[in-house]
């Protein structure tokens, strides 16, 4: 593989700064939990279902606990008490709550077991449930053994019809056309829903709702077609948003393989409250880590609003931060799919050289991470022929620099969410370029002192400078000042802040404790 000279001292500085920045985030969120974290714990314990108005039972329970000021001790402890108090199985209890027959705080008050009694009951339950996740993870590993997911870069395509059944049809067709990874795009603005919709859904805009049942349907369909093809087809959905950890939990339960998981994306592009989403992110990534799910971060999005050439270093800076934050959620490098993108103005002379510099630099900075490389979107137009060509150059940059996860560009990017043939053409495009240029990266060397090397040097230097600044100001302050994507977000603004609450001294999150313990001991 062609290699750039990278100033290792600067890289050490970057990682050092990222650690300081992450310390700041940790401090910012310490002693806090959120309604979504608590709902997640309930879900992981087995609470499910909706009431007649389609409100999910975890939401009802958490609301009840919150109103009764019980939530600060954690939903797990409260559920434990309720289960010990009542005569219910978990699912019976959930149904009773859904029917409005049980008001959780009342049930809890019925008896007063000792803290230790509850917590040991809860931890036992937690271990059982955690074992299920391990089993699912195990199942994935076995399937991957049996049906190899294929060589990298993996071909990643999206389905986004709004209707899970159409999605399935298209996902299966895509798998047959060579896709390694299927991402089901969510309906617009699902990230702003403070609950997870329920059941199979057929009405979404620009995407399909992420629901547990939709996950299950797609997983089953892909397992089937993958078995037939002798290839394990990976399934992706999104955590980011107001339900980060909940969706991570559903992903763990339904054997998703990758999840988009990035608080920064929520803050910048969905105006979600910082505190809320950093707390959520921490736990959701722990879940991803425990479930063996690769996360995808969203740095690529910065370049859709900011200038791709001038702001390239912001992507790298954010990657260092995201890496460190992910590490603190116990994610090993091979599960940290850092995002970046091929978004430089195609009219720029030698623009492709700049893209190569960026892709190669990132590749070398995060050698063990399966980088997720996003295609040209911003400069796509209705000229589908030219678009197809740009996607080809993107594929070329990827195979030369050895990217891990290739989100395929669509020639109709500027027009509509992909048609079935758009995907097929894109898969064909990538297969052709990857195969025809398979070892091109091995063959070439970057001239020292050349444009590519200089560009990489420049981006890394700017990255180090930016991280240094952020380390001083703190990440929150930096976000307020519009350091990323040219977007400013105030520390206390944004959606979902009402869901942040302080923990009592007795608070515990049994899953977080267990996941952390087990993951750290590995």
């Amino acid at each position, binding site marked *: 593989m062609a290699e750039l000279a990278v100033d290792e001292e600067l890289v050490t500085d970057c990682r050092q700064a990222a650690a300081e920045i992450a310390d700041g985030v940790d401090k910012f969120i310490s002693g806090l939990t959120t309604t979504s974290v608590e709902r997640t714990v309930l879900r992981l314990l087995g609470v499910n279902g909706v009431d007649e108005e389609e409100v999910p039972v975890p939401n009802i329970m958490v609301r009840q606990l919150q109103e009764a000021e019980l939530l600060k001790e954690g939903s797990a402890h409260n559920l434990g008490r309720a289960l010990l108090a009542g005569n219910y199985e978990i699912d019976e209890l959930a149904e009773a709550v859904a029917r409005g027959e049980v008001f959780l705080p009342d049930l809890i008050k019925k008896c007063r077991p000792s803290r230790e009694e509850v917590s040991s009951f809860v931890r036992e339950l937690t271990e059982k449930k955690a074992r299920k996740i391990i089993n699912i993870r195990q199942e994935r590993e076995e399937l991957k053994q049996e049906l190899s997911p294929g060589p990298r870069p993996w071909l990643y395509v999206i389905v986004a019809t709004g209707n899970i059944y159409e999605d399935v049809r298209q996902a299966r067709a895509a798998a047959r056309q060579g896709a390694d990874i299927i991402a089901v795009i969510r309906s*617009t*603005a699902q990230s702003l829903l403070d609950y997870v919709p329920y059941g199979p859904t057929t009405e979404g805009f620009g995407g399909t709702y992420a629901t547990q049942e939709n996950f299950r349907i797609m997983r089953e369909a892909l397992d089937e077609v993958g078995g037939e093809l002798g290839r394990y087809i990976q399934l992706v959905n999104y955590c980011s948003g107001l339900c980060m950890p909940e969706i991570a939990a559903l992903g763990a339960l339904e054997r998703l393989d990758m999840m988009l998981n990035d608080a920064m994306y929520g803050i910048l592009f969905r105006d979600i409250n910082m505190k809320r989403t950093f707390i959520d992110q921490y736990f959701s990534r722990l879940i991803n880590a425990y479930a063996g799910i690769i996360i995808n971060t969203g740095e690529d999005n910065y370049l859709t609003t900011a200038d791709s050439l001038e702001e390239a270093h912001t992507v790298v800076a954010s990657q260092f931060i995201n890496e460190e934050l992910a590490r603190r959620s116990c994610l090993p490098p091979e599960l940290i799919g850092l995002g970046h993108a091929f978004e430089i103005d195609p009219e720029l002379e030698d623009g492709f050289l700049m893209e190569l510099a960026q892709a190669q630099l990132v590749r070398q900075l995060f050698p063990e991470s399966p980088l997720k490389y996003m295609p040209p979107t911003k400069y796509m137009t209705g000229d589908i022929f030219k678009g197809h060509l740009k996607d080809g150059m993107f594929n070329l940059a990827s195979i030369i620099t050895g990217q891990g996860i290739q989100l395929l560009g669509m020639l109709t990017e500027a027009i509509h969410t992909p048609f079935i*043939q758009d995907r097929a053409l894109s898969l064909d495009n990538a297969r052709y370029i990857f195969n025809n240029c398979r070892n091109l990266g091995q063959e070439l060397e970057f001239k020292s002192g050349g444009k590519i090397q200089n560009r990489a040097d420049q981006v890394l230097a700017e990255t180090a400078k930016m991280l240094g600044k952020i380390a001083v100001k703190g990440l929150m302050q930096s976000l307020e000042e519009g350091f990323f994507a040219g977007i400013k977000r105030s520390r206390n603004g944004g959606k979902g802040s009402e869901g942040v609450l302080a923990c009592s001294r007795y608070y515990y999150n049994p899953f977080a404790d267990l996941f952390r313990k087990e993951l750290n001991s590995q």
Partner: protein
Amino acid sequence: MRDPDSDIRSGQERKNSGGWQEKSADVDLKQVRPYGDTLNDGQIQLSFTLPVPAGPEARAAGRILMEKLGLKEVEVVHLKDLGEGFAFLIAYGRCPVSIDFTGIEVTQATSKTMSFQEINSFIDKHIGRQIRVVGACTGTDAHTVGLDAIMNMKGYAGEYGLERYPGFATWNLGSQVSNERLISKADEVQADALLVSQVVTQKNVHVKNLTELVELLEAEGIRDEFLLVVGGPRLSHELALELGFDAGFGPGTTPPQVASFLAQQLSEREK
């Protein structure tokens, strides 16, 4: 002997000189047809997927379908199996239909696009106060880049956005704004114009959003208090008019186009 060289450059009758201009068959603008490589050959390219298995029957089906659309000499040049019982086809055919180009009139939002300076003096002269504008990406739409291009200082394609114009006072509400919030903000600041951006159009969600806005305004009886302007990559002035807006702006719109429209319309209305 006469100099035999006099004709060597051409070697042939000079009468053809410049002939290509005249000889080139002229387009009959009353009967315009697609052009492949010869006038009126009517050649068009198509591609589409059929939900039938790839094979000779799919090829025939594609051909028949195109013939049903009236195309002649249809040829399926590529057939690709997409799996799951889908076949993709690329085809060429001859379009026998022609259109009368002389009869085409395009309605566009602005009659005359003025420059930054011109707009400001126009507002000074004809309106005598700032034009008050509230903008938003409505519904669940979070694509702010297009609206920002029109409204933000920075602007677009080398042109300042409305914020920079002394003649405008602006409120950019950003993304995912409900129609209700937009209206209440417009009320609050006594806006002259609402600028709505709609980028997501899947399942015609933009039509739904835009119709709802007009209905809400009409229900409150305040439709006529505002210039209603919408923009987005899939929008045209025609569609906007159809939906009850005063103007629509499509891809590539620049701020001065919008500013000119607002200024001119408002001065008309205030007359």
